[in-house]
């Protein structure tokens, strides 16, 4: 266990000053997610344009440093991507948190990969993995427009 790996500068900074913590005007997709064990919740808003590109993405909610940083980094990276690219990034991130040692996607710049890899510290803290993945699962639900509320305990 290593607290320094978990609470890296980038995480603390994004946790304190989350990017895109607001509600997208004219959003056309959204979903809510919650973690019933701790009461954390997140609401992700998306604006997909006619070319299936993420014109804007934002989130509202409250949570720990890990969950806020994860949502913040996620929205930063997904903005401007096509829906297929977004799906690839989501799969890559969830795969890395679950089992893969590295990110595989070629869509992301090295800088962005470094940011995402900062979240890999949660791998050593099984109880905190859900904090890092909640906003990502909620984004999937928003993109699929399935109207389901995401819960970490389903």
């Amino acid at each position, binding site marked *: 266990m290593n607290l320094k790996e978990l*609470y890296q500068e980038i995480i*603390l900074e994004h946790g304190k000053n989350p990017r895109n913590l607001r509600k997208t005007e004219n959003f056309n997709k959204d979903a809510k997610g919650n973690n019933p064990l*701790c*009461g954390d919740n997140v609401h992700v808003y998306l604006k997909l344009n006619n070319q299936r590109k993420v014109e804007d993405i934002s989130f509202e909610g409250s949570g720990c*440093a*890990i969950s806020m940083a994860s949502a913040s980094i996620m929205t930063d990276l997904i903005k401007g991507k096509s829906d297929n690219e977004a799906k690839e990034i989501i799969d890559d991130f969830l795969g890395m948190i679950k089992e893969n040692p590295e990110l595989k996607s070629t869509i992301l710049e090295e800088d962005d990969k470094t940011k995402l890899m900062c979240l890999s510290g949660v791998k050593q803290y099984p109880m905190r993995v859900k904090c890092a993945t909640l906003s990502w699962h909620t984004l999937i639900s928003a993109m699929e427009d399935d109207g389901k509320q995401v819960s970490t305990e389903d």
Partner: protein
Amino acid sequence: MNIDNIKKEFPIFDEKIQNNDLVYLDSANSSQKPKVVIDRINEFYTKEFSNVGRSIHYLAVAATNLYENTRSSVQKYINAKDKNEIVFTKGATEALNLVANTLGQKYLNEGDEILLTELEHHSNYVPWHYLRKSKNIKINFAEINEEGEIPIENIEKKITPKTKVIAINHLSNVTGAILPIKEITELAHAKDIIVVVDGCQGAPHLKLDVQDLDCDFYAISCHKMYGPTGLGILYGKKKWLEELPPYQGGGGMIKEVKKDRITYGDLPNKYEAGTMATAQVIAFDKSIKFLESIGIENIIKHEKELIEYGQEILKKNNSVKIIGNPKNKGGVISFTIEGVHPHDIATILDEDGVAIRAGHHCCQILHDKLEIPASARASVGVYNTKSDFDQLNESINKCKKIFDLK
């Protein structure tokens, strides 16, 4: 028994937890177990095991006697009038579900009201919520005051001619407020209202006398009382347990089963369907003996000193905000740190071997009222010492350092 040496009775404190001495401040969640209780479970399974109340062979009779012996010990410990007023359940949650379900079946009607408080644990709300759906029953909540207490006036205010049940906790698992159960019962009974007490936090920390409290039901969680998991107790006044229908059906709870009719067993069998948590019940006798050997007065005094010390030290720490300030308080200190989410606090404290709880502690109603998503909670048991709070404070300072707080 010397309270300073009590920690030695608990083998877990000989263990290193991630290379640290364990500072266990999560007893409101579940207490650690003394060696006598752990050994008793082992001994029963090793030398004395049999199911109870059925077969007539030697082991079965001996096990049944041990099982019933715990019932008598519980009766004595909580000063119930009758041994048959003690029902074993799989936990306090099941005990509360039993009461809500059976009152719903026989006693409550559409439009009746149940009064809870904003301090209730989900297990003393969700079972009543079912009746909202199935019987169209209304639930009201008595409000907390500024100090995180429920003054009796706040209960009185919410009683209407339709109030049939008041279901309240004895000691809040978040603010630590001790509720004036005896006064509430007097008030309620004058209006023919049943009083159900969630005693999960009351039973480990307070002197219990159900006849003095005069409540109709009292639910106990054994694993919070230095006992095994998988076991709870429902105390119910005999008149109610006799009048209400059974909760679950199965073996052991019947008198006679025919193709066209079934008659149910007498108390307490009527409420103990199926094979019970036999080893846990038998080992729980050792938990009671353990509590008796220390003496509840000594426990109350010890824990009061701990909580006062903990509050004093945390109040001096900038950025720590303690939740609630009840005059009559026991067992727990819940707090927040401005700028650090409780989950981050818990993870950082854990690195030093300090075990606390973070979250809403199954009290979302209360956290909504306080307008916070979660809180951190340090709770005590007989084995805690003032140095545990020193370590808590030190680890909180580490937390503040990581998050760059002054």
